[in-house]
């Protein structure tokens, strides 16, 4: 795994969108290297043991805990993906993204300008979201490619990406064809992902693996590797619509794939667990997992996001508790 590292000298630069984040050179992808894919092994029990003991091995307290929770807020893709979304609903969500935590609280904690990582919506809501977030630097992410099942005609899936980019989405969350993984048709998966990446143009592409439907952690690891070879900027666990969404074991497997890919190519691919992360404590465990397995560089919004809707509320309550010493209540914090 010693390939020449060429272009990752991380000339950190502000993005074109003026985001408060720093950007890596984009992962250009590689040729499909099936030997590398097939060499990937995952031992489920061992992965689960690592995850089960991690919360007991890493603990952050007091000011550190508050800082970590604020960091988590900065990495949330605040999301609404419901059939009953309306413009009003999306505008409310965007307002929350601009001011994720009460102003007073943020002032007191010393991070008055904190915003969430992005807002994530369906295609039809992109324009509303872009307008609502104008001037904030918060990107709009759109789920795409026949989300969540990804079974609409291929040309329509590609067209959907192009439409969404045109509508102003800076990030596109695509879904892969799970059947390619389940039938071990790695070439098809690679080709599909490459086509989606091409369609995204300058918009960053997150590959949703729908890990709850891939059957095994080994498949998760191999699909992760394929998507990175095909040029994914991020790999993401779930649509939030599967019966099992983000879990720590799945996350561990995916970020180890990211680590291997980085060691091999020199490119850093981002990670986004989505669905099922709703507690502040869980968010801290995720951040610790990232810090331990990938390193601090990944603890920035350009390389890590939480796909979550109810997580923010719990973090707000914990932050208030941090400041006051009193346990908080949900109604004291603005809904998103």
């Amino acid at each position, binding site marked *: 795994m010693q390939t020449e590292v060429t272009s990752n000298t991380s000339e950190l630069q502000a993005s074109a969108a003026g985001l408060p984040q720093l950007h890596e050179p984009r992962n250009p992808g590689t040729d499909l290297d099936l030997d590398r894919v097939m060499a990937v092994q995952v031992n489920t029990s061992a992965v689960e043991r690592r995850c089960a003991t991690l919360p*007991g091995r890493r603990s952050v307290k007091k000011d550190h805990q508050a800082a970590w929770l604020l960091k988590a807020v900065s990495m949330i893709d605040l999301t609404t993906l419901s059939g009953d979304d309306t413009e009003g609903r999306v505008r409310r969500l965007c307002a929350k993204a601009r001011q994720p935590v009460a102003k007073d609280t943020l002032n007191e904690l010393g991070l008055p300008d904190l915003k969430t990582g992005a807002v994530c919506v369906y295609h039809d809501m992109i324009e509303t979201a872009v307008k609502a977030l104008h001037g904030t630097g918060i990107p709009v992410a759109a789920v795409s490619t026949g989300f969540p099942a990804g079974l609409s005609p291929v040309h329509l899936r590609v067209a959907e990406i192009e439409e969404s980019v045109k509508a102003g989405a800076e990030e596109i969350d695509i879904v892969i064809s799970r059947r390619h993984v389940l039938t071990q048709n790695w070439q098809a998966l690679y080709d599909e992902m490459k086509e989606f990446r091409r369609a995204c143009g300058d918009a960053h592409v997150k590959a949703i693996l729908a890990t709850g439907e891939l059957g095994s952690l080994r498949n998760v690891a191999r699909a992760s590797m394929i998507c990175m070879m095909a040029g994914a900027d991020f790999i993401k666990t779930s649509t939030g619509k599967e019966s099992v969404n983000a879990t720590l074991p799945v996350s561990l497997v995916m970020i180890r794939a990211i680590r291997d890919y980085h060691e091999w190519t020199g490119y850093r691919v981002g990670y986004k667990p989505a669905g099922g992360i709703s507690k502040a404590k869980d968010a801290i465990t995720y951040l610790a997992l990232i810090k331990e397995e990938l390193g601090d560089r990944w603890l920035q919004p350009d390389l890590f996001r939480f796909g979550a809707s109810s997580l923010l509320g719990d973090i707000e309550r914990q932050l208030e508790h941090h400041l006051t010493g009193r346990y908080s209540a949900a109604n004291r914090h603005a809904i998103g």
Partner: protein
Amino acid sequence: MTIAEIFKTMDYGAAPEGNKEALTWLEANNRSFGHFINGTFTKASAGFKSHNPANGTFLADLSKGSADDVDSAVKAARKAQASWAKTSGHARAKVLYAIARLVQKHARILAVLETMDNGKPIRESRDIDIPLVARHFYYHAGMAQLAETEMQGREALGVCGQVIPWNFPLLMLAWKVAPALAMGNTVVLKPAEYTSLTALFFAEICQQAGVPAGVVNIVTGHGATGEAIVTHTDVNKVAFTGSTAVGRRIRELTAGSGKALTLELGGKSPYIVFDDADIDSAVEGLVDAIWFNQGQVCCAGSRLLVQEGIAEVFYAKLRARMDKLRIGDPLDKCIDVGAIVDQRQLDRITSLVDTHGSEGDVHQAKCDLPEGGCYYPPTLITGLHAAATLMQEEIFGPVLVGTTFRTPAEAVEVANNTRYGLAASVWTENVNLALDIAPKLKAGVVWTNATNLFDAAAGFGGVRESGFGREGGWEGLAAYTKPATAVKKLAPIAPYAPGTANAADTIDRTAKMYIGGKQARPDAGQSQAIWSPKGKLLGHVGIGSRKDIRNAVEAAAKARSTWGKTSGHLRAQILYYVGENLSARADEFAARLDAMSGKKTGAAEVEASVSALFTAAAWADKYDGQAHGVPIRGVALAMKEAVGTIGMLCTDDAPLLGLVTSVTAAMAMGNASVAVASHAFPLAATDFYQVLETSDVPAGVVNIITGDHAELAKTLADHLDVDAVWSFSSSDISADIEARSAGNLKRTWVNNGQARDWNAPDMRPFLEAATEVKNIWIPYGE
């Protein structure tokens, strides 16, 4: 640092576990402790100080147990034992259950005390040590409850002397105390001098749990205190966990005393990674293998064996992982590696690495060491070869040594190239490979795709110089019992005195020895005449010597690996065939036995021998292991494996039946044996090799030597390639065998001058002695 700054650095910060309650407890005892004898604490007496190795702070003054202290503890234990054993199993179960619950109720203070005393991270004492302690008492509450129905025919040994180490202070106490109490024994336990505090807290738990006075006694002190326990004449069993050197000494000190003995000693356990393993998980596993408890773990995966093709990738990942370890204040909840238990241990580790590390490439984790306190950085030394000191010697610290292998066969060869045999880890995603390798490893515990998993239901213990006996499970329980039968003395049986009558009415037959499937003349070229009680010359047998034993052990070594791999069914067929052929010559054997003894019991003894052969054959494919329900998604397979080469001094009071029973039980379980025939009446044994020769018994599986028991026992018990020695001899050799067995800590089963009923049909005691239980942990799940 402000929150905004932490937001940038994303440091962990400090996460200290509070120790107020533990300090309050120490103060409440004026930081000064006596012993716990007969249900009460004695007044503190002169002794030694206990310190926190993480920062050198004083914890408490402890009393140094004198011989008198030990004596009063043993007396209290003796006085309490009979009634404790008579108490119903259910009543004992209630007490053990109460202990389990109290351990859980006091879990936090116990964890904090353990960490302050030992230096291990609070994460480990809180999440591993203390929960396992509770689990052990729960499990053995169940054993006490079931004792009356499931352990019929067994009874308590009596007073147990127990000496435990400092690496898992309370857990080792639990492993020793729980099974002893479950079966009605009483105990005198000495905690290690570095780490006595949780044992003293445990004494309070005993008071609260209703443990009757004298059932548990705790005497603190150094090695001399331990020696006083071990050598006390009224102690019936000694259980020790600690170093191989001390274990060897205890074996010598207890030799011939009749004390039951179990030893759980050192190790240099291999951690084998095949090229199809989940490499990241195998790397992570090493954190739990060698950096768990600062590597101060007898079963630590301290010898890394990596398949050559992935070695560089593996080492690179491992070094990167090491650099992420956090070393520091053990009471911090965010720490991976705590403090070494004591400055002396730290000095030892430092000196071993400083002296021998340069034989390989040393990498030390790039993590900051705290100021003060006994800390040593996680260390990896690669590029070592089998001959390197650090590949052979137990370091007992956070130091991993590594080498490579090419093939599965070579992995086994390198793994087994050690005097130890405690544990092993095997990493591969190939189930065929894992299940092929696990039985071939010389170890009492094998973890597949895992490491350092423990549970009360799965016995723990080693082979070779890692000691003998198991702790946990049914086999661990049995080690705290003995057969509930009255014992009779075995009178010495001497050969009959030479007579004058000549026997030359037939052609002279030369009884030889039987070595490696061939009849062999005695190396020394000397023979001994065997006379009948009436003074008739019955024949001559060779006088065996050291060289004959050497040759026989070599033959056995050659035979044992193939014989051990045969199926039980095949071994059964051969044993039946031996029985068939013995039966065909029954009259001749009966006449021979009668001629030697001058009695008319020969026919019955031959019939009993044929029956014993059938019993051995019957067991060959039925003495099954177990699948333990351990608390993981997976299974622990308790496999019964052959001990290896067993030397036997056969009985004189049943010269054919005794030999046949011993040898065939060993054969049935896949062992090779070197049997020394009855000294007084050897001719039935020398006739018997002709039966073996005609019955498809492979060469070397059974070897028969004749000669003087005391002489031959010396060579057998000294021999470093003999795994066990049994003696049913009427010569007074038990003590000598046990003392000499300390050389390679071979298993011994000696009669201590007591008789055995050779007509008892139950062969299980022989089968138990002929097997080791290996627990193979197999986590699964896709």
